[in-house]
């Protein structure tokens, strides 16, 4: 049972956060599951990451594109769900650096997701619609009375709230017109490198104040009205719940398929939808239902880790995340090579997740990264080795495999992986720390064993 608790808690902390060190895991597993969930849902109970420390060591500030600092936050935050929700909304409201080349507004957007990510959906959509990075990304600054630009209106309905099939092209045009005049204070200066913050401004001159009909409601609808109407549609919580399910529980097909393919677990979607309406559209309540459901608890290893999850998980495993170190930018580069360049998703659809994280190129990067990070001199690897023997002077091959899989996750493996690891353990004859020579040999063998575990197929799963 104790082992079952460890595995369940590890699952929760991997999904609702970015994994945990063994000490963090054992501490949380000793507590009531629902109490751990409540702590995750209430980030304000815990201190924020010390931004001064980040700034002092790395010169990271708001003008640096925040992929590396963000990974540092993910690995170190004591508010893991707040950070995970910021990543969730970044997946859904995918905004890329490639167009604006303006780090200030993008960093600010992620801060906004951190701030309102678990609040009610109308607030989140309103903040999104007023977010300068989003306005520029989807051209709402070009959306004027008489010359509507449909980009934001379209994606607000198709990708950010309801999904295809729940509105008409006419509704979409009306939504676009309702957001005319929603722009930012000054054009973002690309060159010279002007790090000006930009803020939302409403330009009544550019706003189309005429009568519009949207999803059956008619009037001189504004952007606020559109968000209000969207939030009340049954399609909206179902769409968002499916996103949550795909991000936190188990891989779904890609978003374009959702209008055709039913959800994997319709009951889970129903339960989240009910919580949404009962709570007055609040994400925190939806997440509470999600994490406490059996559907979630039983979904272990049913998701492919995103590159950000893989990298932060490895950092926690090898224990180098705590020390701000030069070269942290390399971790941002690593997720990029694995197909996830944070703050620069390929399109407004965001990243294709699940199985689509994996192809020959990205699997190659994932395996090599994980193996290279697991070096015997790293603190997490040393405590892994100490934990393997827990004071004993030797460990037979089968126990070496069992203990390694437990301490690395726990990772549940299939018979091929177990066979491969067992053969390695048997060839190397288990571990012995009786003499100094054997000790140094066994340290290398144990580290190699951990490398093989993180190179496995099962380790690719969250």
């Amino acid at each position, binding site marked *: 049972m104790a082992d079952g608790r460890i595995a369940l808690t590890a699952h929760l902390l991997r999904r609702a956060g970015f994994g945990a060190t063994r000490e963090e895991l054992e501490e949380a597993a000793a507590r009531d599951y629902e109490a751990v969930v409540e702590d995750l849902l209430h980030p304000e109970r815990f201190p924020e990451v010390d931004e001064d420390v980040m700034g002092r060591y790395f010169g990271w500030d708001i003008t640096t594109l925040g992929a590396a600092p963000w990974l540092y936050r993910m690995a170190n935050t004591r508010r893991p769900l707040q950070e995970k929700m910021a990543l969730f909304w970044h997946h859904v409201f995918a905004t890329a650096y490639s167009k604006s080349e303006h780090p200030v507004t993008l960093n600010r957007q992620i801060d906004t997701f951190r701030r309102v990510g678990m609040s009610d959906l109308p607030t989140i959509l309103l903040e999104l619609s007023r977010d300068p990075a989003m306005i520029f990304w989807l051209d709402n600054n*070009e959306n004027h009375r008489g*010359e509507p630009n449909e980009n934001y209106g379209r994606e607000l309905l198709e990708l950010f709230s309801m999904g295809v099939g729940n509105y008409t092209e006419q509704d979409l045009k009306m939504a676009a017109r309702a957001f005319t005049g929603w722009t930012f204070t000054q054009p973002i200066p690309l060159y010279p490198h002007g790090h000006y913050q930009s803020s939302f401004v409403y330009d009544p001159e550019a706003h189309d104040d005429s009568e519009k009909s949207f999803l059956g409601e008619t009037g001189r609808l504004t952007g606020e009205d559109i968000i209000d109407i969207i939030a009340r549609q049954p399609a909206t919580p179902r769409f968002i719940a499916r996103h949550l399910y795909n991000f936190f529980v188990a891989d779904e097909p890609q978003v374009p398929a959702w209008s055709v393919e039913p959800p994997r677990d319709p009951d889970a979607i129903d339960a989240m939808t009910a919580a949404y309406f009962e709570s007055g559209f609040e994400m925190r309540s939806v997440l509470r239902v999600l994490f406490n459901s059996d559907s979630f608890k039983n979904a272990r290893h049913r998701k492919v880790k995103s590159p950000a999850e893989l990298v932060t998980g490895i950092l926690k495993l090898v224990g180098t995340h705590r020390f701000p170190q030069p070269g942290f930018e390399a971790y941002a580069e690593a997720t990029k090579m694995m197909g996830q360049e944070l703050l620069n998703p390929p399109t407004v659809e965001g990243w294709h997740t699940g199985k689509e994280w994996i192809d020959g190129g990205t699997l190659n990067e994932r395996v090599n990264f994980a193996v290279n990070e697991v070096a015997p001199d790293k603190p997490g690897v040393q405590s892994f080795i100490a934990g393997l023997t827990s004071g004993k002077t030797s460990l037979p091959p089968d126990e070496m495999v069992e203990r390694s899989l437990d301490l690395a996750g726990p990772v549940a493996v299939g018979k*091929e992986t177990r066979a491969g690891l067992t053969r390695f353990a048997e060839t190397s004859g288990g571990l012995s720390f009786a003499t100094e020579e054997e000790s140094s040999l066994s340290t290398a063998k144990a580290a190699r064993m951990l490398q093989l575990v993180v190179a496995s197929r099962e380790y690719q799963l969250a």
Partner: protein
Amino acid sequence: MEGNGKPPVLVVLQLSGGNDFMNTVVPYTNPAYHDARPLVRVKEEEALAIDDTLAFHPSAAPLKDLYDRGTVAVVQGVGYPNSSRSHFRAMDIMHTCEPVALGTEGWVGRAIRELDPKKENVLTGVNLGRGLPRAMSVPGVPVTSVGNLDSYGLLTGISEERQREEALDTFKSMYSPAIGSGPVMEYLAQTGMDVLTGADQLKAAPATYESDVEYAGNAIAGSLRDVARVHTAGLGTRIFYVQHGGYDTHANEMPDHPVLLSDLSGAIMDFMQDLRDHDASDEVAILVFTEFGRRMRDNGTGTDHGSGGGAFVIGDRVAGGLYAEYPPLAPEQWLNGEDLRHTYDFRGLYSTVLEQWLSLEAAPIVNGQFEQIRPFVEAA
């Protein structure tokens, strides 16, 4: 297709975001074009004329040069009925040839299955770039996807050779295919084994390649250079896939679109030259496509999603010229009062390339019979 005796090779080049075909191959003398595009257009005096009605965008000058050499087939009005305006749905449709239901098999993946039914070469289909396109994805069909050609290979961080061999042996057993372990685990196993096999062979590409062509520093030039490196290494690849992103020009089309066209056409020009220098151009054809064209009218600084795009088939064995019909431009002919009407089904274009270039039966790959064009030089 008979050529220089080498098996024909197809390079699929995807323009992601919906290329503005009307501002690429421009109806520069048509008043309807200038009326609809007061702010986002190519001026008549700047256009690179093909004939009295059509011209290339001035930033696509290298493409115009290739056209003048007779090696570019411009395929006009490419689309399908009830064109989707969603990028993602539209791209899915272009990848799976399934405009109504949801397709699960990509057309390029199906072609690879036919080209290499016994799965003898994991390099038969190679994607160069990040992210495997849906077009190449068919369960059980091995394809190789390479993010970085120069660092491809597993466990390369283990420097001691015997230890690396030992670790690779363990990797092989951990990734050996297991029946009934579920589609994700099976896919991971297949991908892992394909990387092992592919990486061994791909080492030859950077090692043997030499060239006098200096490609530009942009992404599409890098991707096409990688195609040249792998192709000239003679590893048996029959279909390459590369992508060029950024074509979603809702805003700032006037400054942004020319850069895209210039990068693209320059890269194609250099690639073709590189192939010729290696006596390897006769067996290669490039298919350039996009998910849709853009709206007839501009929106002030850009153009919104539309339909009726266009494609190119490029190569030394291509019979250059104009194919299919340019969509009608008179406002009363616009689809839904605002879009270019498609004149040619994209599945006909795929069928053309599949049957006439790769000698494959197209109907099962594109899900039906579609009218073909004749863009290749007939064998002597």
